[in-house]
């Protein structure tokens, strides 16, 4: 038997699942299996708490918070050893080429988008999950500092400092100039 909850949820999944997967892919730094797990956990939590989601002051922020919580929960599972594999990857990151030799984030001798994407994933992997989330919400979703803080249940000051640190680390990691939108409602100093 279909219920209103079912119909609304189905419409939500059709409309928003792809976006959730895209966000989760960035939040998991390109780990698509983990991203799918995180999205499934997020959607399950949303279905169970559907009245709360519908009644939330800011439903999209509620959904984003569920996504981050699901990511953190997934990473706490003892049978996941992904953090260890991240450490290994961290040591094997291929340094990107210097400025002036083609695309600034392009590895020497490599010339396609796949390499750039992988370099970005590797840079994201080097960030702690919440710092990564700040980066994704601020510069992928273009959320304001306030909305990012709401999604992550933290202070706006914390968002600003985390964003600044994330950008610094990305710059160091990617060995190139990185422009960052600074008009996004009180963006950090970068």
């Amino acid at each position: 038997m279909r219920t209103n909850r079912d119909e609304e949820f189905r419409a939500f999944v059709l409309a928003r699942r792809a976006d959730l997967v895209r966000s989760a892919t960035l939040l998991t730094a390109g780990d698509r299996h983990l991203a799918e797990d995180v999205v499934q956990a997020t959607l399950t939590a949303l279905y169970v708490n559907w009245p709360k989601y519908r009644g939330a002051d800011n439903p999209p922020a509620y959904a984003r918070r569920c996504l981050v919580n699901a990511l953190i929960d997934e990473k706490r599972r003892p049978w996941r050893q992904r953090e260890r594999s991240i450490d290994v990857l961290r040591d094997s990151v291929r340094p990107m080429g210097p400025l002036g030799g083609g695309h600034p984030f392009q590895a020497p001798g490599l010339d396609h988008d796949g390499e750039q994407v992988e370099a970005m994933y590797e840079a994201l992997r080097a960030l702690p999950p919440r710092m990564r989330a700040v980066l994704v919400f601020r510069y992928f979703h273009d959320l304001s500092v306030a909305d990012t803080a709401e999604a992550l249940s933290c202070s706006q000051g914390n968002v600003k400092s985390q964003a600044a640190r994330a950008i610094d680390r990305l710059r160091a990691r990617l060995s190139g100039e990185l422009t960052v939108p600074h008009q996004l409602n009180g963006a950090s100093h970068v």
Partner: protein
Amino acid sequence: MSDLTELLHRAADAVPVAPAASVVDDDLARGRRALARSRQIRWTAAPIGLGAAAVAGLIFAVPHLTTATPGSVAVGDAPAPSTTTTTTISSTAPRNLDAAISLVAYTGAQPAGYTVDRVPDGWVVQGVDPYSLVIAPVGAKDTDPSSFVGKITIGKANQGEIEVERPGPQHKLRVGDVTARLFTFPRPEGPQAGARAEQQRVHASPRPDDPEGTRGLLLPVGKGAYLIFQLPGTLHWDDATVAAFAAGVHMTPRARSAAG
């Protein structure tokens, strides 16, 4: 020079989009199963949100428990390991099974997460972790503290347990200086689309052996927080006894709600 936003979009766009109908169906089925587990709380297995560390703790504490729930969603802070206790309470004399079980003072060690002033005569604290306190009859065949059938189970209610509409008979009950809600847990529902495996698990479980059904109590314990009680009908408690028992149960800061 490269733009961070552009790079992030390029990375995110590298994944497939547009969910197929079967994917949506699967998402819906998972949600339904989780909601069913939330509503049928504690009749069958461990709480949905039982933390992974808690599951690990149970495995250590109860050697025969080997069926941890890999599908569970760990939430909140890492919980303390579960513990079991064998504190025996009062009488072991034969009793009339239809008679109400009286309350006696609890004299054992207070379990972390929840404390109790009184327990049913002849019952023991069988297990406790931040998610639930389980009290069972002395000598109960089911010694698994993650199995709640026929036992008193108390935990911090999650939002779903607080908000869910309960169709059965219910009424307000004064407990100390707060008003609680006493209700009857519904029996597990019939199979639903996409939830066959879960329902088979539910129907394979024993039911509480009582004619009146298992009752529940939602007890306010602070701003927006509730304790939820599962009270098997075999206790034959009247409202006054339920209130007296509930008034003696207290939640500590270590308590965690099982995610719905």
